[in-house]
């Protein structure tokens, strides 16, 4: 599955050190919190609900096949509201680029670390229970700037 992921067009795995991983609902045992990948797609659904908002989007691979992806936000809706988010912040058919922590299962699900919507970066906060000041820069998983590495090529995150 990891090989499949690395072949998906628009998915670029990037090694980064995301700082302290905050365990919530088993976040750190579910995702590779010490790795960040970049995923590009088109939004199909945005759930701005508790405990964590979810984003669903389609990613088209190099063969033209559409792969359904899902991503969870680490902050709660309340924390995101402090950053100016509403349930209308992401809309159907928006083009999104996510920096996110890949799942340990290798399936197309990830934990969101950074995001741009239709080419415009937006803060996604700093994790569960963290409410950065409005306008603050993302506290983890900043947009990737490092050279790329295949998804399976990075060390696994330490379990919490």
């Amino acid at each position: 599955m990891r090989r499949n992921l690395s072949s998906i067009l628009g998915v670029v795995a990037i090694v980064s050190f995301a700082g302290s991983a905050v365990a919530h609902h088993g976040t750190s045992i579910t995702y590779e919190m010490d790795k960040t990948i970049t995923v590009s797609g088109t939004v199909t659904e945005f759930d701005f609900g508790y405990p964590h908002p979810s984003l669903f989007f389609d990613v088209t691979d190099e063969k033209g096949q559409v792969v359904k992806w899902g991503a969870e936000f680490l902050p709660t809706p309340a924390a995101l509201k402090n950053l100016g988010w509403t349930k209308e912040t992401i809309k159907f058919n928006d083009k999104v680029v996510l920096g996110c922590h890949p799942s340990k299962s290798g399936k197309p699900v990830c934990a969101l670390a950074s995001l741009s919507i239709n080419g415009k970066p937006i803060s996604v906060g700093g994790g569960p229970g963290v409410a950065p000041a409005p306008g603050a820069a993302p506290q983890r998983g900043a947009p990737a700037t490092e050279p790329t590495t295949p998804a399976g090529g990075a060390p696994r995150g330490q379990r919490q």
Partner: protein
Amino acid sequence: MKVITLFLILSAVAFPAVVSGQNTKFDPHDLTGKWARNSNNQGFANVPETGRGNFPEAPFTPAGRAVYEKNFPGYGPRANATLRNDPMGSCDPLGIPRNLNAEVVSSHNWWEITSAPDRLIQFFEWHHEYRVIYTDGRKLPDVNAALDPKWNGYSVGRWEGDTFVVDSIGFDERTWLDKFGYPHTDEMKLQERYRRVDANTLELTMVLTDPKYYTKPFESDRKVFKLNALQFEKPWDEQIYCVPSEEQKFNRLIRDPASGK
């Protein structure tokens, strides 16, 4: 001078419970308010939040340990992504004592105390549920009687000086003590001791006795709560619910595939 002295004496008689703390007057016997936990530990006892390193061994009986080992939390040293069976993951009731300690801090949750002449009521945001602590002098039901277990048990409270002491029995044993999966039976007796140490601070310590699962009383660490310590600009603009259908969808589409469950 005599007039001033007399005034001070009369004031003390008229308002005996009002004292000053951190420059703000408060009544140590008034526990009402919305409290958010300030201490980090979300375990019943002092289990490090990271789940790494040292953590105290609970005084399990063999039966208690057997049940503990079948509880698979999503947190801590025994976190298990694929087998996790935390009641929170399905929006099941958390019960007491977990309601007092489960993500009460931060954006997720807090609890509130209101009072009536014969009882205190605690409201828990996550499930929008409440718990009654009777203060009318009634006794707890006979533990040997056939009690119908409750998620939050039966509770009575009384004052010992400035400490509000709550004794409870009759708990439904399907709940965990905390997110680390510590179990209890329906024979658990719990004592909570609350003390308002200043205008903005409430402290809580707990001890449970449950001889089937624990060989001796199991004590919590000291929990510290702050009044109205919510992190958000518009806390009144929040509706925080654990909605089963939303939780199920989240698990089905996000968390289960991510963990390989």
